[in-house]
């Protein structure tokens, strides 16, 4: 802690952030102070207004339910993508025939942005909830698979040879060398995939309109605030999602460090 406080980088960063908020405050209150409004910035709600709006929603159950709903959707799509994507990616990396057959169609579908799937999946799946889950799954799936393939194929051939000459079977090679060797890329892919998942959940919630109030989520919270014309509440929603996204990627980093003790060096 003493190290952080004695560090000029920390103070500079803090100063910059405070200045940023201050300028924003002045910019949005320009009209009150000088009688005319600044373009664009003048339309933003002041940070103080945002803070007030936040304290108002904090005790409300609906706000926390939005958190819960969004997290649930992210988790569902993300876990499905991991559970299907990792074995699929490993199969593609390990088995040449499998790769020859399944990789080309995969590559054709990959460049389509996940959000473009939203309408199609709304048509296909019987419920809104299922279609959101499907699109989030797609968002993370492609990223994870690509990372798994890249990771598994970049493993140093000498590890495989060393194990082979000590009498490792195919299964030993897979479970003792390829799988742990791919872990770092799996977690990199998971971190990126998590970011995409949040984007997709948000978009799906906004586009599908959230349906009834109960099936909301943070995306719907923002959309609702927009429809209701409450600018400060939009910003509250944005910051909330920022925090949520940050929390989930930190979680992945912590889990990653647990699973890969050899990367936690010195």
């Amino acid at each position: 802690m003493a190290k952080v406080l004695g560090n000029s980088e920390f103070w500079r960063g803090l100063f910059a952030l405070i200045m940023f908020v201050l300028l924003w405050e002045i910019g949005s209150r320009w009209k009150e102070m000088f009688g005319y409004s600044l373009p664009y910035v003048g339309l933003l709600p002041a940070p103080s207004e945002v803070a007030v709006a936040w304290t108002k929603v904090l005790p409300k159950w609906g706000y926390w339910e939005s958190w819960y709903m969004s997290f649930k959707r992210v988790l569902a799509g993300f876990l499905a993508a991991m559970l299907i994507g990792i074995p699929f990616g490993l199969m593609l990396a390990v088995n040449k025939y499998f790769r020859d057959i399944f990789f080309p169609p995969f590559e054709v579908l990959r460049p389509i942005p996940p959000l473009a799937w939203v309408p199609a999946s709304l048509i296909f799946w019987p419920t809104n909830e299922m279609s959101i889950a499907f699109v989030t799954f797609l968002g993370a799936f492609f990223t994870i698979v690509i990372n798994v393939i890249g990771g598994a194929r970049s493993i140093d051939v000498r590890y495989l040879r060393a194990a082979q000459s000590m009498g490792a079977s195919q299964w030993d090679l897979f479970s003792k060398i390829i799988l742990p060797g791919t872990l770092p890329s799996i977690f990199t892919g998971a971190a990126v995939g998590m970011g995409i998942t949040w984007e997709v959940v948000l978009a799906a919630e906004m586009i599908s309109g959230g349906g009834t109030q109960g099936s909301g989520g943070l995306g719907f919270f923002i959309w609702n605030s927009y429809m209701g014309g409450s600018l400060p509440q939009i910003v509250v929603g944005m910051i909330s999602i920022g925090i949520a996204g940050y929390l989930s990627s930190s979680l992945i980093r912590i889990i990653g460090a647990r699973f890969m003790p050899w990367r936690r060096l010195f």
Partner: protein
Amino acid sequence: MQKAVEMSRSEGHAAGADLQSRVLLEGVSKSYGEEWERQDVIVDLTAEITPGELTVIVGPSGCGKTTLVNLIAGFETPDKGRILLNGEPVTGPGHDRMVVFQETALIPWQTTYENVVFGPKLRGDLSGKELQDEAERLLNKVGLREFMHKYPLQLSGGMQRRAELARALINQPKLMIMDEPFRGLDAMSRGLMQEFFLRLFEENRRTNLFVTSEIDEAIFLADRLILLANRPSFVRKVIDVKLPRPRHYSMLSSPEAYAYKREAMAILHEEAMKNFKSTATSKDFIDAYSKRAD
């Protein structure tokens, strides 16, 4: 290090019959590449790795030494000729031949101890207490007892090399293959590693093939010295090094060692210069020299 060396000396000389294996290379050839740019790496190489001796193969880098190692270890198969281990042809990798790789190939996600017990555990040769005792004995011998629960990346270069030696030795190979194992170490730790390695070898004289591009290292370690020609490689000359054992680092600057050095150096310098001179202006130069792994 010194302590570790003392320990290994007191272990005594346990020479078993399975340590005395013989490898014969008969007319081995290997080439790579598309047919229009086919490069012969090894051509008609015939040599013998004699039982209970330390055979050192020396050649300029990029001359095909690593290919030779891969062939003997069974990672690759020769285009022509055959390789016999105790009369049996080599068909694939096996734990009777252990390779200590260039730069080390310890598995980074296993601790030093896990790396060492990896082989026996896979095959189920040794079990439980027995395995643990044997692993700890070997780790003790290489002076890594206190580091056994560290990961390879947490060890220094010299320690990694010693851990790799322990990992190979626990498999009781009939033949040890060392592929420029001390490459990448600085000259000083290298000297210490050579001494340490010699103590290990002199203890039971397990048949050993050591591949290197350093002449000093080769003369210091070898019973027999095989000098390779530069690409394509074949045996240029075999020199029997008759320096007394056990060897001491000061022997390297003895007149006898220098006589060997002179002999070997004249040939190797000529081979190394092939890279520079023969093709100094042609496009082949770039192919031959700049493409090789540095």
